[in-house]
């Protein structure tokens, strides 16, 4: 399985880092320290620590029941933690809940909608309870409706909308007061593929001004949308890094695939001689392909190509195999403790 390099993601990331360093350092928008939550005898969240910086999209990945929703509910101040602290924009959620809550826009797993209300009235109501001032209210509502593409249904009853539109109304609700922090709990669940892509684009487009935590159990969503990823299992964070690094770190060696036009076993020997290559063999799954493993300390790629070409082989294809996030995820959640911190 291959992981496509999120080139755009990286570009986007470096641009933002630059902006931040210009504005004088990174600002921690969300700071979670030693957070634990017990439900009776069950430890739903176990000593979680992480920070999210301004403008970042952080992925929160875990199987169902891993403690994602509980963590989000604690951050948003819906339930108190058993121990530990959460700071949002510097405000302690336990000590200064109303200030902290003002900075947060929250889309729970199930969008909190009133089916008997009209879309526009609903968003207006949420704006009011989230303290949007009276003169800005109409503008804010229009803006949220506009961003989420709800103009065509603004006068309709929420109860009559399709699942995709309801999800968008949920998102508009989280955006109406223009919060600094957006917490989205499985925002694409139950949507069709087209809607999923739309929502992902929407989330990415929001990243510049908003800091986002995106909870999901869908791996591709994280690769496509997020920068850093926290993988959570049984209430613990088992890995926390940029998703590229995660897959790289986890595997001690890098793998490559070399596709040869005039394939014979000679090419394997030719490649084995290259500096840095630790193993080469005929690929099990593809014809005319050599599977190569190499250590991390030395980049063998130029050598491999040169060796193949010098031995008169036609190189048709060459690519590096990275562990996909799926692999990382399965590996980390299978062994109880991952070592990729």
């Amino acid at each position, binding site marked *: 399985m291959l992981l496509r390099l999120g080139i755009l993601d990286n570009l986007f990331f470096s641009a933002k880092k630059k902006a931040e360093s210009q504005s004088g350092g990174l600002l921690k928008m969300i700071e979670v320290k030693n957070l634990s939550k017990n439900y009776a005898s069950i430890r739903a969240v176990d000593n979680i620590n992480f920070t999210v910086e301004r403008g970042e999209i952080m992925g929160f990945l875990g199987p169902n029941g891993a403690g994602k929703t509980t963590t989000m509910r604690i951050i948003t101040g819906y339930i108190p933690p058993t121990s530990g602290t959460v700071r949002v924009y510097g405000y302690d959620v336990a000590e200064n809940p*109303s200030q902290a809550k003002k900075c947060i826009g929250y889309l729970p797993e199930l969008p909190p909608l009133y089916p008997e209300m009209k879309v526009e009235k609903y968003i207006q*109501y949420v704006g009011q*309870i989230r303290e949007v001032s009276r003169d800005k209210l109409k503008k804010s509502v229009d803006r949220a409706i506009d961003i989420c593409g709800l103009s065509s249904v603004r006068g309709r009853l929420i109860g009559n909308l399709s699942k995709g539109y309801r999800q968008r109304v949920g998102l508009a609700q989280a955006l109406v007061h223009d919060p600094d922090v957006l917490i989205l709990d499985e925002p694409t669940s139950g949507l069709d593929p087209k809607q999923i892509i739309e929502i992902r684009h929407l989330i990415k487009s929001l990243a510049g001004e908003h800091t986002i935590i995106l909870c999901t159990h869908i791996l591709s969503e994280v690769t496509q949308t997020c920068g850093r990823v926290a993988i959570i299992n049984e209430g613990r964070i088992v890995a926390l890094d940029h998703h590229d690094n995660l897959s790289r770190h986890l595997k001690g060696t890098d793998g490559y695939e070399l596709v040869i036009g005039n394939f014979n076993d000679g090419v394997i020997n030719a490649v084995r001689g290259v500096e840095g290559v630790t193993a080469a063999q005929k690929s099990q799954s593809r014809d005319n392909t050599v599977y190569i493993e190499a250590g991390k300390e030395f980049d063998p790629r130029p050598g491999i190509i040169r060796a193949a070409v010098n031995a008169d082989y036609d190189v048709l294809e060459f690519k590096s195999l990275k562990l996909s996030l799926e692999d990382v995820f399965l590996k980390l959640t299978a062994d109880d403790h991952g070592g990729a911190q």
Partner: protein
Amino acid sequence: MKKIWIIAKKDFKTFFISPIGYMVISSFLLIIGYMFYQRLVFFVRQSLISMQMGQPMEVSLNDAIIKPLYGTINLLFLFIIPLITMRLIAEEKKLKTIELLLTSPVTTAQLVAGKFLSALLLVATTLAGTLLFPVTLYIGGNPDMGQIFTMYLGLLMISACYISVGLFWSSLTENQIIAAVLTFVSLLFLWIIDWSAMNFSSGTAAVISYFSVIRHFESFIMGIIDSKDVVFYLTFCVFGLFLSYVGIESKNWQ
């Protein structure tokens, strides 16, 4: 304060989006209107008879019509207020919109107050429909307006108590039917509690009958505003609201 009003206004409107608001108000006014009509007809017939016999009327307009009528309103409230309050918080829990409210800069106290106010407004609207009766009597006769005023005051106070009980049960469950039934049962219990008073010694009996909600309504019916009763209703109501607050907060105890 502003948020309390926003929540109250939204919930008040919701009563009239769903059929429940219209249903409750119209069935209430239908029954009470019919009873008013019956009593009025009876009273008019009685007064005609006494005029023919050349005797003065023995009962006043207030005693014959107003008093029993407003006692009946109280009884009807016992049935309709659980229907009004059942959805207040239970529905928010069912729809998970409670999560929206409590992750917004809204405190639990503001939420409770807003919900309470919305139900009280609906009850006041319902009661406003009955203002037609004293107006009718005033046009055709000479009722004691002061007494009518204290009755309305008493009704508002007693319904505030009922609402606080309903709000409490609604805060504990997602199921509206359960909330309504439990509200009705506890209100009924508070009504009939002084029946059991006779089984006890005089000291205990006094305490038990003090907790009878209906007992405190009697002075309002007689046109008296007794601070003892006002204090009882206010404490009762505040206590009910406090329990509702605790009911919502109880999610934190898990």
